[in-house]
């Protein structure tokens, strides 16, 4: 390995939280009830979307729940690709109306985030935006003690990218304000994540590609963030190995169950560092693209990640050496100046994006030049900006958008 981590100091503080029980393997959908019962579920609302429901997967999950002696209280399948506040409220209301005591999400990031946010409203009441923010859920001891538990939540991810099945945040769209907002707190970690490649068997290759690039962005940003940790490094590096070996296979050969299973694990690992806040400005750039132009998150990350790598690598040898580690893992050239190593890794990412058949420029996905100042202002206010290894200005953001346009 290059020297980036050899002389790393012991951090003054970090914490690692990973309470979700992850089960991975084949045939697990059929034992969803057996597994979810261990988490306290009895009467389950299944949350999904219409497309997934049409594949028959939801029927299999329901059979699996019943086989484990759980009741299926109902199915809420009205989650759109970019879920919003109204959908979350409707989902929470459905859980109450059906008398559910637990929620199981079957879907991608939008479905899982809807279920997580709905679980907050279902448990604590109010409107979802009442709970916007970080670590704001009710706690014992006048807000300083242990947070109150939410209803049991399990996730069956049907994409390999978001990692929401093992994260403590939910991102929801406000369609009136054209923004995406977050709510995040420890109880929002799902209690159970079921990683079964059967759940991604019908995933369209383009979606597999975009979500896979989301996972790659989590791993790469997590590894260089100011909030990186040794625990997170381990997950990011293993995620990147799995992505290196499985992403193209899973997209180009959708029948490859091994590749799809490994991609589920990769996505699950890649999100790990972000649970300690280790992420960066590729996400800051991408969130406004989704909020204002409906660019799918994985596609936006695929486009924005290379310019961010180049920007960060030019910010100092310490950052560039982290990228050098990643280049070594990817069997790329590790020598040269800071800028050169950034360019090497960025070009590798661009090449991967091309091979995956994804768009390479923001202008290809509807982002306009006129919007760049507004997007830059939005990116400046994104929480991910605070933990990027190189501190950007709003002008930097506009320049990055121009380079990605």
């Amino acid at each position: 390995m290059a020297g980036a981590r050899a002389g790393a100091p012991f951090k003054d503080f970090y914490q690692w939280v990973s309470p979700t029980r992850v089960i991975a393997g084949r045939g697990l959908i059929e034992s969803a009830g057996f597994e979810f019962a261990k988490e306290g579920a009895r009467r389950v609302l299944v949350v999904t979307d219409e497309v997934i429901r049409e594949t028959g997967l939801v029927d299999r999950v329901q059979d699996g729940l019943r086989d484990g002696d759980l009741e299926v209280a109902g199915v809420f399948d009205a989650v759109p690709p970019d879920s919003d506040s109204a959908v979350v409220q409707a989902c929470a209301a459905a859980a109450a109306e059906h008398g559910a005591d637990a929620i199981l999400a079957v879907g991608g990031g939008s479905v899982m985030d809807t279920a997580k946010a709905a679980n907050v409203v279902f448990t604590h009441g109010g409107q979802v935006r009442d709970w916007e923010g970080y670590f704001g859920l009710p706690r014992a001891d006048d807000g300083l003690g242990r947070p109150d538990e939410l209803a049991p939540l399990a996730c069956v991810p049907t994409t390999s990218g978001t990692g929401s099945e093992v994260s403590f945040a939910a991102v929801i769209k406000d369609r009136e304000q054209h923004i995406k907002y977050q709510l995040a707190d420890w109880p929002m970690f799902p209690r159970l994540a079921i990683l079964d490649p059967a759940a991604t068997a019908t995933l369209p290759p383009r979606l597999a590609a975009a979500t896979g690039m989301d996972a790659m962005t989590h791993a790469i940003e997590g590894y260089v963030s100011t909030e990186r940790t040794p625990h997170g490094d381990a997950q990011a590096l293993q995620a990147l190995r799995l992505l290196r070996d499985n992403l193209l296979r899973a997209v180009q050969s959708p029948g490859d169950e091994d590749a799809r299973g490994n991609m589920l694990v990769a996505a699950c690992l890649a999100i790990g560092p972000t649970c300690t806040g280790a992420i960066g400005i590729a996400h800051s750039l991408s969130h406004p693209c989704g909020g204002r132009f409906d660019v799918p998150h994985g596609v936006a990350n695929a486009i924005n990640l290379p310019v961010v790598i180049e920007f960060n690598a030019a910010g100092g040898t310490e950052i560039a050496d982290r990228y050098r580690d990643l280049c070594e893992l990817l069997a790329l050239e590790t020598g040269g100046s800071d800028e050169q190593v950034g360019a090497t890794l960025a070009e590798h990412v661009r090449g991967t994006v091309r091979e995956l058949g994804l768009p390479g420029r923001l202008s290809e996905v509807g982002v306009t030049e006129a919007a760049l100042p507004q997007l830059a202002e939005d990116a400046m206010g994104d929480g991910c900006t605070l933990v990027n290894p190189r501190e950007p200005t709003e002008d930097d953001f506009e320049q990055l958008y121009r380079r990605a346009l």
Partner: protein
Amino acid sequence: MLAGEPVPARRTRKGVHVPYFSSEQEVYDHIGRLFTELMADDELRPQFQRANTIVQYRYRNPESQITVSMLEGAQGQVDLGPTGLDPEVVMTMDADTAHRFWLGKVNVTVALARGQMKAKGPVAKILKLVPLVKPVFPRYRAQLEQAGRGDLAEVS
């Protein structure tokens, strides 16, 4: 970014934690004054007003509250204590944490993760201000010294 802060307050000889500020009025005299002066600054106020929001800072130990209107196109307003403003964002923390933040000793990300700061509402609106306030840190330190309270600037 700075590291987390395991020692939030001064100690007496008996080892008991003592907050930096002994009264609500002291919070207003120092942190309140800083906010008031920032919002009266013709250069800084427009930058803060890009947040276009009303933020309420609720402090513990001692109990106190500062509400800051940063609405675009309006006069800045800082209310110390009771207010008629309707805050959009509420930040809750010990007054010690606020004091140490303005001295540049608090990593906001870590403070949020540790629960030392609680953020409710559209937090992104004020997170964008964090890079802007870094130049204010020496100003706060100087303000304390001018007030004859340089002792308060000695924090870990």
